[in-house]
């Protein structure tokens, strides 16, 4: 009966015959990337995915523009705040694991090359979506092209020359193919501009459905970002920068042209003009505080014109606001504890502290720098002075504070709070009885424990919406606003700058500056300088006017995340970020001791190295075609 054995063997083999079925456990319809492009609602998620990589520009933890320079300072080590940008400010940027690494998406940076790949995947596949209306498809494609341009722009600003990701390389690409090299900055700029031009044509000027689409990019955003890109390209850092004449790829490709090209300003000026015209055509205008709800003084109203041009949600001036990085944490970081009856509330942190340099930057009440004002005693600025009834809308009447805080322009009082400053709003809307700040040791807004205090004694009131209210317990009422990435005043000042660089001083340049100054409650450039400045002719020369435009820009856009980039593109970071960081001596209880500038840190900026981010060393080891940023 040998066949018994056979039967068993056959049986065993028969079972084995079913193997492939047994081990095939995957049911049909397991999600793959193809599912993202089968229908409109799924494809919309992919569109939103592309948006999700936009850097969080309204959060100083992830946007280096706030803390990595000299605009804000914080106590150190900082525990309740991701201190990556503070590390950069303290000169600790490195090549092993760079801070705010937007190349690899590490240490707080977004992975921008992943973002670019997703944009390309979207562009490659969007035609597959059956139920997507053609007009909508055109707009979506334009949005993704914009985002692709914007991600390149971020990389350009951080890393200078970068590889351009025009299309996706397949995963199966050979080892040599994937080793891409940097491309010259001019090529990168041209690529970004071409994408923005393509996008601007197909984008609406205003989103059709405000309730669900505000925050998505428009043709106005595309045109104004183009203006910003071209102004960057025309600025000294990128336009004929001889510091980088030896900065070349391994094959010798020159990455920075060392000859200055004035035509770049021409392109920038045109882009600014086109953007401004488009904005005006769409009804955008500089913001003025409309509220008639409260009967307030002109002084307070002017300050509200300034404050709410940032803090009011979707205001008339906003060209592109980020609905994905709304101002919430940054408001907490700026808000001082002003309510003596709610000291237990620890949610207002007040730790994002403007430096003394920022306090001195603002003009005198006459609209000229405090160093130039004939009537302003610069040398005595640290002396004590007591506020009078005349100052009552800006300073607490009868309060003793530094002379530096007197007779300054409205933007000084609108943007900053300090020991003795009036803080209008935040639940007290009668400007005869507003909050005021008391910031000396043991006072309401002073240091509490190890964290949660302003190490300079200043607070960036500008970024706090006037309806932010400290409530009982640990509660807050925070009115979020879309972080302003681009607003009209910015564009005006870019245009003024470009025109001055192109043609020198003239009425047209002044007119754009004066629009901004008017809203800020200041006389015109011509009047201010002629009447009050020790250098009355300054605005009539190109160099003088350049200085005026730069300063106007630094003041108008203070604390909004522009100073850091502007100083770099003007090649002035080496001067600004290279010296002592000062604040008041906040550990003191007596005014006489408190109002002594204290050195918090001695910043070092190594030019030209620190103008660009280093690339993580590992990337260089993996891809030898990639050269390290100059000096790193």
């Amino acid at each position, binding site marked *: 009966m040998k066949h018994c*054995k056979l039967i068993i063997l056959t*049986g065993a083999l028969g079972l084995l015959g079913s193997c492939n079925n047994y081990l095939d*456990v*995957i049911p049909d319809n397991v999600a*793959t990337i193809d599912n*993202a492009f089968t229908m409109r609602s799924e494809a919309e*998620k992919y569109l939103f995915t592309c948006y*999700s990589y936009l850097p969080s520009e309204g959060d100083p933890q992830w946007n280096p523009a706030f803390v990595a320079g000299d605009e804000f300072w914080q106590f150190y080590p900082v525990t309740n705040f991701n201190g990556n940008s503070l590390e950069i400010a303290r000169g600790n940027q490195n090549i092993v694991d760079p801070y705010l690494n937007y190349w690899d998406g590490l240490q707080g940076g977004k992975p921008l090359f992943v973002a670019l790949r997703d944009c390309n995947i979207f562009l490659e596949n969007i035609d597959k979506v059956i139920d997507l209306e053609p007009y909508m498809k055109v707009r979506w494609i334009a949005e993704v092209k914009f985002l692709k341009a914007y991600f390149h722009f971020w990389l350009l600003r951080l890393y200078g020359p970068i590889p351009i990701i025009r299309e996706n390389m397949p995963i199966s690409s050979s080892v040599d193919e994937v080793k891409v090299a940097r491309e010259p900055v001019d090529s990168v700029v041209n690529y970004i501009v071409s994408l923005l031009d393509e996008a601007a044509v197909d984008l609406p000027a205003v989103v059709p459905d405000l309730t669900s689409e505000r925050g998505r990019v428009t043709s106005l955003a595309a045109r104004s970002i183009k203006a910003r890109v071209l102004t960057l390209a025309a600025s000294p850092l990128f336009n004929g920068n001889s510091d980088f004449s030896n900065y070349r790829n391994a094959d010798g490709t020159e990455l920075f042209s060392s000859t200055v090209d004035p035509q770049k300003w021409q392109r920038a000026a045109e882009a600014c003009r086109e953007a401004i015209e488009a904005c005006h055509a769409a009804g955008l205008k500089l913001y003025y505080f409309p509220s008639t709800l409260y009967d307030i003084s002109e002084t307070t109203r002017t300050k509200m014109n300034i404050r709410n041009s940032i803090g009011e949600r979707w205001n008339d001036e906003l060209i592109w606001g980020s609905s994905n990085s709304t101002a919430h944490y940054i408001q907490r970081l700026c808000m001082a504890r002003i309510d003596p009856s709610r000291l237990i509330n620890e949610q207002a942190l007040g730790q994002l502290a403007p430096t003394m340099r920022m306090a001195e930057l603002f003009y005198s009440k006459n609209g000229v720098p405090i160093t130039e004002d004939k009537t302003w005693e610069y040398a005595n600025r640290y002396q004590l002075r007591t506020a009078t009834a005349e100052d009552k809308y800006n300073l607490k009447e009868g309060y003793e504070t530094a002379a530096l805080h007197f007779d300054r322009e409205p933007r000084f009082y609108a943007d900053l709070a300090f020991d003795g400053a009036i803080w209008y709003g935040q639940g007290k809307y009668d400007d005869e009885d507003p909050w005021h700040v008391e910031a000396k040791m043991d006072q309401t807004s002073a240091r509490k424990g190890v964290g949660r205090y302003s190490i300079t004694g200043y607070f960036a009131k500008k970024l706090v919406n006037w309806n932010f209210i400290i409530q009982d317990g640990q509660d807050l009422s925070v009115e979020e606003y*879309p972080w302003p990435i681009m607003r009209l005043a910015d564009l005006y000042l870019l245009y003024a700058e470009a025109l001055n660089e192109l043609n020198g001083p003239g009425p047209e340049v002044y007119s754009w500056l004066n629009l901004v100054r008017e809203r800020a409650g200041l006389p015109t450039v011509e009047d201010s300088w002629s009447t009050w400045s020790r250098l009355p002719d300054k605005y009539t020369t190109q160099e003088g006017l350049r200085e005026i435009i730069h300063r106007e820009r630094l003041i108008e856009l203070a604390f909004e995340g522009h100073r850091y980039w502007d100083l770099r593109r003007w090649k002035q970071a080496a001067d600004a970020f290279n010296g002592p960081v000062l604040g008041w001596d906040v550990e003191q209880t007596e005014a006489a001791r408190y109002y002594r500038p204290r050195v918090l840190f001695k910043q070092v900026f190594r030019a030209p190295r620190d103008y660009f981010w280093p690339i993580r060393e590992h990337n260089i080891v993996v891809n030898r075609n990639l050269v390290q940023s100059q000096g790193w």
Partner: protein
Amino acid sequence: MVTDSLTGESLPGVSVLIKGTQQGTNTDLEGKFVLDISGNEAILIFSFVGYKDKEMLVRKGQAAKVELVSNIEALDEVAVVAFGTQKKSSMISSVTTIDPQELKVPSSNLTTALAGRLSGVIAYQRTGEPGQDNASFFIRGVTTFGYKKDPLILIDGIELNATDLARLQPDDIATFSIMKDATATSLYGARGANGVILVTTKEGNEGPARVSLRLENSISSNTRNVELADPITYMRLHNESVLTRDPIGLLPYSQNKIDNTVAGTDPYAYPAVDWRSMLLKDATSNQRVNFSVSGGGKVARYYIAGTFNQDNGVLKVDERNNFNSNINLKSYLLRSNVNINLTKTTETAVRLYGSFDDYRGPVDGGDGLYRKIMRSNPVLFPAYFPAEAARTRVQHILFGNSNQGSGNFINPYADMVKGYKDWTRSNMLAQFELKQDFGWVVPGLSARAMGNAQRYSYYDVSRFYNPFYYQAGGYDPRTGTYSLALMNEGEATEYLGYNEGAKDITATVYIEAAVNYNRTFAETHDVSGMLVYIRRNSLVANAGDLQRSLPFRNEGVSGRFTYGYDDRYLAEFNFGYNGSERFHQSERFGFFPSVGVGWYVSNEKFWEPMLSSVHKLKLRATYGLVGNDAIGGPEDRFFYLSNVNLNQEANGARFGTNFNYIRPGVSISRYPNERITWETDRQLNVGVELGLFNDFEIIAEYFTRHRSNILMTRASIPTTMGLQADVRANVGEAKSGGVDFSLDYNKIFTQQFWLQGRVNFTYASSEFTAYEEPDYRETYKSHIGHSLSQQWGLIAERLFVDDYEVANSPRQNYGEYRGGDIKYHDVNGDGQITNLDQVPLGFPTDPEIIYGFGFSAGYRSFDFSAFFQGSARSSFWIDPYATAPFVSYRYYDGELSDYSLQNQLLKAYADNHWSESNRNLHALWPRLSSTIIENNVQRNSWFMRNGSFLRLKSVELGYSIPRDYLSRWKIQNVRIYVSGTNVLTFSKFKLWDPEMAGNGLSYPVQKVFNIGVQVGF
């Protein structure tokens, strides 16, 4: 009457044969026999499995009293091998077996006994918390850098995990074998490459019920405690740590506070708390009860065993709570193995096994609490304030806390007493086996089939109140009073809250069918064959995503064919043909063959003259392939499919006036690759078995392994590709090699005195042979040629003298650093210290040598044994994060996120650190800091230590009450014993137990003293 020479127990079933005839009988249940002999006298041959044959001259009518000598080697005559058994003498594969009694340790964790006892096993134990104290063990070291490095564990043929193995009772184990080479493991195909541990449980023997009972009580304490600095030093150095980094920093303690604390002004206003002694006892006691009943008749046999273990933690209990939150782990095991002979040739077996753990302990678990103690400030607040200190009358305990700085601190005492956590774990198996002997059809043919179902479940639940935290302030030295402020009004509760934890369920079904053929032709040709088919299906309840929820499956056919000629020449061919659901259809099945040959030299005629000195010499060699399909990660399967999440919140965006038009986004966590497949291991084993002077048994083996197809991330893909997930391929290769050696000595000198000795030695080293890495110009960065657990790090030269030296040395790219921080060597000379300066440091982290030696001796009714175990050629690193004083360190992101943490200060650091007043360039700890100094915590040679140690792992003294006293109670044997585990440790490293390696601040390895009694009747 036939008895055991050692124990004096009667031996039933011994075969008694009259020499030169076929006439014979067996002893009965009491070991007695009656045999008619034809002449006046005859030579009787007594033989019994596990004993040496004995010949004896008897005279007619005379009672023969025979003592058989147990034969340790012969005990293993039949060894358990993959899917069956094999005669030990004919085996050529590399298998270590151990007498299960040797695995007996006074602990409810079997895995802690493995180190040093089994040649070929590399093992170490890193923590001593009951329930979490499994040792890590690897067969012949590690030859892969995939995720599954540990062996396949099979208990009664069923794949189980290390915890199941840990819960096994040595008393219930029939055989315990470690399969080490390809011939032993290739039948397991794609799952056997890391070796296999094979355990079978006991079955009943024919005879009356035999009951065995064992009771143990043990006292367990920490082998070594980390020494902490006193509270005054803590404050002084905490102040120093702030000032030395930042002259304008805020001091954590005023001089007034320090002075008052020194003076002991008031224990509540100026507390100084030794949290460890506040929370922990020095020792705890554990109990174990184990019983078994076995027996049976012609038709059915049974083995029933039950175990109850109770392990207690070392936490103290606050009398004011009505619940006890000390760790209490009760485990219950019940096993029933029943064999039934349906017909003369058909046998069935039903095996039921249940293992149940019930745990009650603190909400954080023991290790969690231990870690909290190590991160609690000793001087900020007392554990609790006296009840009368509160101005209002309250029910609750007034726990201390402080919000100095930001947020609450840890009050570990409050966390210990605030509630308790229960978890239970159950594992149930039901197994049915059918064996049919087809000898009547084809001589030597048999078949069997087995089915097994397993359910594993776990859940935990915690009940706790939110403690009331009070902060003391405003101490008035004249009245000696202070004020108390409630810190968490509204959050704290006097009633219990509740939290449900994880719930895991796994259901597994396994079937196996086999045919066996086994026959000897012409008395010299031994032929055997076996084919087995297996199929396994496993499902998990809480998978987390669709792909993980799909069944885990294995399927395969394996076979073994052996040929032996005259017990002298042996040959074997094995194969496994296996598939796993993880891979693409084209890569799903793999074929894993192996061959082996053996030569039993001492069975040759020409060897006979040498038999008296060398009674055994066997040479054997095997070579073959084995696989490992557990690559990537346990949940990371289906490499041939992409894995996308079409509802990824983090990749979404929001728009609209009020930002409330929100859609999730898309993320990719895997790109498809159809060609990914299992790891393949080519294994060579050469062994020699040597028996000397009848007393020594030596097995020495040399092995090499070469693992290829190890899954790796492609290192050549730059970030600019923009991939979201790593691209992986089977490109890694590694090899390992080493030596296993075991020596057993067994001698019975007189009836009163016997001695056993043994030595085990395992050396296994590994190296990368192909590793996907960038093309380093710094060749020392390459992994090739280094051990798989080799660490790379920076070379610490010494501490910086001062800031001036810092400014004039190569820039170190790891955050801010100053004089007194670690100065590194610029290996590549590029003027910067970066990751390119990391060189291979020290030995691998997995020890390359594990050894053990010991002896057992018996004299009259006493027996004594001692066993030493050691480990060599490993390095470990003191964890510079966890031990950094004063800093807030979290073991993982988000751990204890509601608390401010402050690491304790090790006494060793307090005594020996760099300071401005004492610039010791070779201090144990660099310049103090109240935050982590990234520069100092890089993997570097400063904190590297030698992991070698030798310890007296176990020592035992037993006394067996002589049988004469027992017989009237119908008791067969009583043995009383005392034993100890981890009694002594020898190591250069003194801060904590060296076996814990870098993990010195967690629940320490335990030292156990045990008293037990074993009764058989």
